[in-house]
């Protein structure tokens, strides 16, 4: 046991170098801060914007209505009246540049200019004559290149709110009924969505609502697993390459320690490192994904949650997948001659992690053709990538067969690794057949390996 600990500690020291720890923390922090940036962007959207108002007509009636609609919008969206946020431009501008100058003086980024004919036009729409009312929207940078705190999509929503309410008012006048009647004419059909999903009926949801709610899982897990596998796989193969190059592995194998202990130490050491790095990424990704969820459906909203045992299964799958990856890397690493050659050998592992990642991210396992399903199932990394969705959707068959497969796979790789550590292969690589027999010095054919 103390030998095992000695080996694990050495492995951890080798893998958790300041350089690798720092690079992982930096990547995790970049993810997290990207998330924070997005969510502070979202927070900004939640602040009521300040808007300039310019009325260029004499008749104020319809413009007062429009401003009333804007006020409604503020109350509904931000819970405050628009009063303090609407700044009226009371001077008559000479041209467009005067408007911009006025805005920039006051640090206002958006201005609605009601056309001179706006009010008249709106009034005449019911007659079926005339044209539509024009609102010109001016956006101005506050300082060069920066558009301040106003979100374009909010402004667009505001405009379409004005549009809709004005339309309803006109319809109301025409039919002499200003209430529901007008809005019913405007949109006479009502839709009610019902989707059966995961065995239950979800009222008011479409499949796209549900898949956008599941998006966190279907993106987070594959990316996370792929990153962990590639990174830790690369690390262990490089470390094997180093050990070969420096003959430290050779030295270790002549120590009075069981070979199984050496293999176990290497595997456990790097699995621990892998889990630690994975956790760092997970935290970073969590912040990132969490902020992406603003305003979207979340799985909680639609009643898809994971129980504690489900999290246990997820953890188990990740652990086994890392173990499989490391076992495979150690087998590959056994054939590697030096550090340089090790770099190219990480490619197969990377490919094996990338393929299921892309498929799981963009397709549904259950609807894939059988051959592809078989291939994906055989790749151990597929299982942790899709386990979250499978748990939520109750695909128990896939979960349990996947778990069983991972266990068998990891035991097999460990067994093979120990076999290799006990054989000549670790030192000699694969022997190529058909070597010419050794000639003596005076055959003038000296060693060809040197």
């Amino acid at each position: 046991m103390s030998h095992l600990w000695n080996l694990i500690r050495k492995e951890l020291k080798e893998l958790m170098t300041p350089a690798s720890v720092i690079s992982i923390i930096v990547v995790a922090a970049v993810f997290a801060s990207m998330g924070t940036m997005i969510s502070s962007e979202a927070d900004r959207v939640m602040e009521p914007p300040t808007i300039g108002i310019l009325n260029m007509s004499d008749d104020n009636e319809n413009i007062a209505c429009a401003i009333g609609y804007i006020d409604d919008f503020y109350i509904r969206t931000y819970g405050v009246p628009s009063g303090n946020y609407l700044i009226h431009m009371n001077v008559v501008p000479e041209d467009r540049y005067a408007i911009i100058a006025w805005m920039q003086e006051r640090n206002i980024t958006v201005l609605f200019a009601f056309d001179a004919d706006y009010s008249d036009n709106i009034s005449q729409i019911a007659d079926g004559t005339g044209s539509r009312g024009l609102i010109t929207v001016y956006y101005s940078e506050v300082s060069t290149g920066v558009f301040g705190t106003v979100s374009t999509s909010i402004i667009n929503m505001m405009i379409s709110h004005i549009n809709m309410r004005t339309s309803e008012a006109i319809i109301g006048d025409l039919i002499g009924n200003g209430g529901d009647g007008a809005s019913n004419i405007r949109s006479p059909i009502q839709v009610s969505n019902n989707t059966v999903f995961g065995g239950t009926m979800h009222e008011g949801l479409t499949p796209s609502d549900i898949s956008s709610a599941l998006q966190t899982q279907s993106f987070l897990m594959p990316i996370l697993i792929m990153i962990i596998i590639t990174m830790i796989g690369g690390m262990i193969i490089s470390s094997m390459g180093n050990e070969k190059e420096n003959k430290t592995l050779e030295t270790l194998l002549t120590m009075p320690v069981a070979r199984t202990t050496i293999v176990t130490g290497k595997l456990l050491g790097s699995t621990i490192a892998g889990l630690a790095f994975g956790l760092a990424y997970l935290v970073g990704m969590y912040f990132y994904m969490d902020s992406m969820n603003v305003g979207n459906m979340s799985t909680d909203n639609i009643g898809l949650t994971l129980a504690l045992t489900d999290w246990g299964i997820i953890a188990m799958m990740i652990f086994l997948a890392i173990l499989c990856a490391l076992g495979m890397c150690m087998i590959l690493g056994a054939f590697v001659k030096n550090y340089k050659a090790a770099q190219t050998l990480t490619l197969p592992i990377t490919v094996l992690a990338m393929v299921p990642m892309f498929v799981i991210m963009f397709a549904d396992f259950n609807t894939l053709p059988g051959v592809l399903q078989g291939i994906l199932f055989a790749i151990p990394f597929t299982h942790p990538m899709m386990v979250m969705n499978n748990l939520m959707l109750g695909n128990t068959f896939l979960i349990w067969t996947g778990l069983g497969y991972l266990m068998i796979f990891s035991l097999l790789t460990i067994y093979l690794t120990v076999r290799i550590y006990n054989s000549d292969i670790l030192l000699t690589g694969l022997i190529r057949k058909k070597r010419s027999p050794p000639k003596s010095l005076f055959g003038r054919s000296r060693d060809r390996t040197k």
Partner: protein
Amino acid sequence: MVHALVVKGLSKSYGDHVAVDDVSFHVKEGEIFGLIGPNGAGKTTTLRIISTLLKMTSGDITVCGIDMRADADGIRKCISYLPEDAGAYKDLTGRAYLNFMAAFFTTGEEMIRMVNKGIEISGLEDRIDSKISTYSKGMMRRLLIARAIMPDPKLAILDEITSGLDVVNAFEIKDIVKEIAKSGVSVLLSSHNMFEVDQLCDRIGMIDGGKLIMEGAPSDLKREYNVDTVEELFIKATVKK
């Protein structure tokens, strides 16, 4: 008296290439035995088999009375192997490396004593606390020899210990080897440098093309073949064959 090492009829093939062919020799307790021969002669292969790293194709090996086929684990307890061109974990300090290695043999007070002995043999003094990546070739070799010797093995197996070193460093290393032997450790070393084994070894075995062509004390052999140097000895032996 039990010999430190007895090798009988040892053969090793890589695929269908015979690297070591029916080699027999022995190393007495406390003696320095040198396996010499040109590159590719089969020295490293022989040493790796004795160190339990490679499996022999045929033959018998006994280390300190322990049979290789019966108890390779037992043999690992009484040997120390230093591979050719070996290095160490670059991110560790010399001291941490010795600590890591010593922990496989013992614990506590005894381990501290072992590491201190290692530090002394290495002659690295306060550089022992520098990272190994900052060591010169000579310092590295001294650290590795110290590591091999500190657990008091019965048989030290040293592959090309002076290769790639300058004269001064090589001289220091040879001094250390002589000291080891004086303290009762048997040494099996390999070299392609015929000149250096002459001064260093009590007995030598000459190997060429996987075959042992001659074995004995350098002085005896030189007298027998009537030559002045081991080099001439080698030439004569290979021509005669």
